[in-house]
């Protein structure tokens, strides 16, 4: 399974347990820290992008000088259906009401509807008097009912929690039956909070905006999915900037690691000279150094990457959100996009493993141009 040289390299590593342990710890921690810092913003963007993909292409709200207004459903539907590019329109009912732990967003669901992509994650939709609640609505409580106060106050039976992967958006959300939501918010029959518009093609979102805005007999505000993504992205920039700044010490740590590794290997020049005098070729010595580095570096990198993954995606890991985004409540569960995460992790591993490996190989390659006698005696090799 392993060649003689590989076994020899592994035994070599075990001959210096303290040095090996320190190198392994340094590589593990550097990869874990750098991986966490680079993976966190990526995970947030992946999560938001995935959730936004399930959101409406365009949301239309009626506005006036005092703010947003309920819009008459029939009038709005007939106006928007004349706009070319619109595939379907859905009136939505939602608003903010009081819950025991603070304000929550209430949304009314038609009996047959749940956002695409998540229908399979919820067992059933709420009937009259029932509610599906987000992770932060009753945090830490195993209550079976919740009392909501809006235009009226009434208890609702909790029939389930919204899926964890949606918690970035549904943290404080309560889903109710359409009629319950309308009553709680105090929305008259025939009116909706806004319209969710689906378009034929993603690129048409901005193209039809002007037609959509002028189609209504009252002023409206249209928000596309791209604009929503931009709003979230700017909100997350604080986290990204902090991550970028904290990457600097991690990169300095890599530089330090490389320098220490070079010094350690340079300190073994006489050892390389003895090996060359015994008939070891430069190629064999380079392979030995490579095996030595990889036998420490690969397991350390693997542990470091697992730690980074746990810090970002692990349940209950709160400090990253608190430090970088100021989240005080339960951390949202982030979506693991395999391709994106893999790219980041490979970048991190490469960023650290490659310099460490090169720092170990450099002196071995340099020895190719030096006489074995000079290496043994340590003449002009440092």
């Amino acid at each position, binding site marked *: 399974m392993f*060649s*003689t*040289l590989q*076994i*020899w390299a592994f*035994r070599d590593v075990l*001959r*210096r347990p303290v040095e090996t342990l320190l190198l392994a710890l340094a590589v593990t921690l550097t990869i874990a820290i750098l991986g966490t810092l680079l993976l966190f913003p990526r995970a947030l963007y992946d999560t938001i992008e995935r959730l936004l993909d399930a959101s409406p292409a365009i949301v239309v709200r009626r506005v006036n000088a005092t703010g947003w207004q309920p819009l008459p459903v029939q009038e709005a539907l007939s106006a928007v259906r004349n706009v070319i590019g619109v595939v379907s329109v859905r009136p939505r009912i939602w608003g903010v009401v009081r819950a025991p732990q603070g304000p929550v967003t209430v949304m009314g669901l038609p009996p047959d509807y749940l956002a695409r992509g998540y229908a399979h994650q919820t067992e059933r939709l709420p009937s009259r008097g029932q509610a599906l609640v987000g992770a932060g609505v009753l945090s830490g409580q195993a209550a079976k009912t919740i009392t909501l106060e809006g235009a009226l106050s009434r208890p609702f039976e909790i029939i389930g929690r919204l899926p964890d992967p949606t918690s970035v958006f549904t943290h404080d959300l309560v889903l109710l039956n359409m009629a319950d939501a309308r009553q709680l918010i105090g929305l008259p029959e025939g009116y909706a909070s806004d319209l969710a518009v689906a378009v034929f093609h993603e690129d048409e979102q901005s193209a039809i905006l002007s037609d959509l805005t002028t189609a209504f007999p009252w002023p409206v505000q249209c928000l596309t999915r791209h604009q929503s993504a931009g709003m979230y992205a700017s909100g997350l920039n604080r986290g990204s900037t902090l991550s970028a700044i904290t990457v600097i010490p991690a990169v300095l740590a890599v530089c330090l690691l490389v320098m220490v590794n070079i010094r350690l290997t340079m300190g073994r020049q*006489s*050892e390389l*000279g*003895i*090996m*060359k*005098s*015994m*008939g*070891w*070729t*430069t*190629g*064999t010595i380079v392979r030995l150094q490579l095996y030595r580095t990889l036998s420490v570096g690969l397991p350390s990198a693997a542990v470091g990457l697992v730690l980074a993954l746990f810090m970002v995606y692990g349940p209950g890991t709160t400090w990253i959100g608190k430090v970088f985004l100021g989240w005080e409540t339960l951390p949202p569960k982030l979506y693991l996009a395999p391709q994106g995460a893999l790219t980041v992790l490979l970048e991190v591993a490469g960023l650290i493993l490659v310099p460490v490996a090169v720092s170990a190989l450099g002196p071995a390659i340099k020895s*190719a*141009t030096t*006489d*074995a*006698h*000079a290496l*043994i005696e340590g003449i002009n090799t440092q």
Partner: protein
Amino acid sequence: MTAALTCHNLTVAFPLGNGKKRVVLNKLNATFPAGQISIVSGAIGAGKSTLLNVLAGLLRPTSGEVRANDQAVSRWMGVHRDRWRQQVGIIFQHHHLLYGYTVLENIMLPLIPWGRTLSACRRKSIAVLQQVDLLRCAGDLVNTLSGGEKQKTTIARALVTQPLFVLADEPTAHQDDESAALVLNLLDQCTARKAVVIVATHETQAQAFPGKPLRFRLESGILKPLAY
């Protein structure tokens, strides 16, 4: 073709740092035949170790060449000389063992690049350890050995590959009479399998060699054959 190591106009000069050079070997010509021990003696600083280093390909000559089996090995690129050195067994005056390794591991060291299995390397090394009467120390770290034991380890390491060229720098310097006889016997066995054996030693120790080895004296950078 019989193995032989020859020097043609071999010159080695070291810069002294003030623009001058110290010529250690001066246009040296010699042939060291296979199947016979060649003894190079000389005063301290005469250049015996330098000559062995050049013959072993550890050091490049300033001019001239070393030919092994009629091939100019001293002119070869480093990578080829490294590979050629697999045929050479070097017994260093200052041992040059790997500290932190056991005696057995030090002896296995020249066998690793040959691509043999680790158990085969171990078997071969143990056999040589028996020959130098050092089997009891196989698992000891070399830094725990006495000077004589370290030298025996160096000798075992040089002979483990059964090299065609054996270059020994004062191989009996740290040995008692019994061990010295054992070492000389081992070198003599190398000549039996037609290896080139060159031993650098002092005049007094040169007398102890059995049979009729070729004798040279290195003086003022020139190698002179000595008659019996």
